[in-house]
């Protein structure tokens, strides 16, 4: 079994009286895609936000290898090697593809906040940005302003930005949402490539994509884990079939057809 890069133990998040997430433990392994599925309101997005630091935990711990990152702010977690995409596309709409990715690369360059010298002339940062753009398959729209791109390309851009931060763990929050079939196929291929040397946590509604990509699955409902294991194990888990998969899987297949 490959090394565990990100380990969350008994995570909990409470909003007033509402338990959005409670007692969720999850291991994300290197070279694997770990998918988290569950019905709407199951707490999947909250889980990602807890792992990335966008939301503070009420209880539990998040470990990155040997380091406890539970108390770190999102920017510190990013520096520790956690990269993420958002459910709603979160890019710099008025900047070009290159500038978006260059910013991401800059944050992880040698002196990210240098006060003097033009930012655009840092050869190392530029080279890493170019490599990330190429890896995300966006070489053809290098100089396009982000808001003029199609939805699918904007999501690819988000992946390119994550890649440029050179993460060891990547958290993807519904990367396929709102995509057409062809766009989705391209994104699936892209995500499959991401796990090489990294650990990927994927929250996704598209069951075909999930079963095409996942090496490991966790099913959530009402803020809790109801099953976790290999795709085969989860697929045949009675509680999962009852609670969620049977109905939704059929619906997903219906949509794809």
């Amino acid at each position: 079994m490959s090394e565990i890069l990100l380990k969350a133990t008994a995570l909990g998040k409470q909003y007033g009286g509402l338990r959005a997430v409670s007692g969720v433990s999850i291991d994300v392994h290197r070279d694997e895609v770990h998918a988290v599925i569950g019905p709407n309101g199951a707490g999947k997005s909250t889980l990602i936000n807890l792992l990335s630091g966008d939301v503070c935990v009420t209880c539990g711990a998040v470990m990155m290898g040997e380091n406890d990152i539970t108390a770190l702010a999102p920017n510190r977690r990013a520096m520790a090697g956690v990269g993420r995409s958002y459910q709603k596309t979160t890019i710099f709409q008025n900047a070009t593809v290159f500038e978006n990715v260059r910013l991401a690369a800059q944050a992880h360059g040698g002196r990210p906040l240098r006060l003097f010298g033009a930012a655009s002339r840092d050869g190392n940062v530029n080279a890493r940005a170019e490599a990330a753009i190429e890896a995300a398959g966006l070489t053809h729209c290098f100089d396009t302003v982000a808001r003029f791109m199609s939805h699918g390309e904007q999501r690819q851009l988000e992946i390119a930005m994550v890649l440029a931060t050179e993460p060891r763990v990547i958290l993807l929050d519904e990367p396929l949402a709102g995509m057409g079939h062809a766009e989705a196929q391209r994104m699936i291929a892209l995500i499959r490539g991401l796990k090489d040397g990294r650990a990927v946590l994927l929250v996704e509604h598209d069951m075909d994509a999930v079963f095409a990509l996942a090496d490991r699955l966790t099913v959530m409902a009402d803020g809790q884990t109801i099953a976790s294991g290999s795709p085969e194990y989860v697929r045949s888990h009675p509680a999962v079939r009852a609670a969620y998969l049977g109905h939704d899987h059929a619906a997903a297949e219906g949509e794809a057809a």
Partner: protein
Amino acid sequence: MAHVSKLWRRGAFALVIAMAIALPIFAPTYYVQFAAKAMLMGMLALSLNLVVGYGGLVSLCHAAFFGLAGYVLGLMTPESAGASMWLSLPAAVLVAGAAAAVIGALSLRTRGIYFIMVTLAFGEMLFYLFHDTKIGGGSDGLYIYVKPQLAIGGATLLDLENNHAFYYLALALLAGATLLVRELVRSPFGRALCAARDNERRALSLGFPVFRVRLTAFVISGMIAGLAGYLSAAQFGFVAPQMLGWHLSATVLVMVVLGGVGTVLGPIVGAFALIGLEEALKASFEHWKLIKGLIIVALVFLAPGGIQQLAALSRAAPVERKGPPAAPQSTEALSNV
């Protein structure tokens, strides 16, 4: 086309610089003093724009940094001699920077409307500090009878009592401050500042320490505002609490918007435009403030892009955006967990 317009712009810019250098040779003293005053306001607007335009932080306390530095000069000036500029200038700038660090550290914990209110309140705190206590002569202010001295070993380098000398000092320091801001906004730091302005969440998740970036910008901006305030106090030979008041902060904000938010030179143009306008209105109308107020209201609705937008309109060239329209954001409804 683009190449020609760039040449034009460079030519116009060189002409303005040449005129600024030549002004004292042909213009009467009044205009030289007026231009120096406008340049110092331009420097204040330049500093404010670093946080408002590039940082997206609407600060209403920059007059406090401006006035505070003026008071430092006033307090360091002996009764019948000039203060040493070698000591008083760095002291004034450092005090302004320290105030910006404290106020910034507190107010940058907040966002949006809160930030505006908190900066306004802290700015007024400094106003009342000088207005209600005897530190700086209370509400009467302080006179600076002798301008600061710039000398080495007893030999005067620059006699600031001379209007032309003062003008050139202000011009040189404005040029220096402008180059500094230009360098900052092009640097990785400046890009990070803009990223935090455009999308704070994303800037954080990319790994940028947003609070630290903003605080650094706020302190640098406060120090430039302090430099402008020091020179203004030296020019007028007088400091009063009104120099720290929020009406000045708001007026400088108008200059920034008038000249163009988020451009390096815009605020300086805006400062000249607004001060020139004020002079013209004062000379012609008794109730000129009414007209000034109406012009500000009109600016908000008719030309939120400032003078540049007016200039673009007058060229009547249709400003078309290239590329297809933005993709519909239809995913929000689908993807809510």
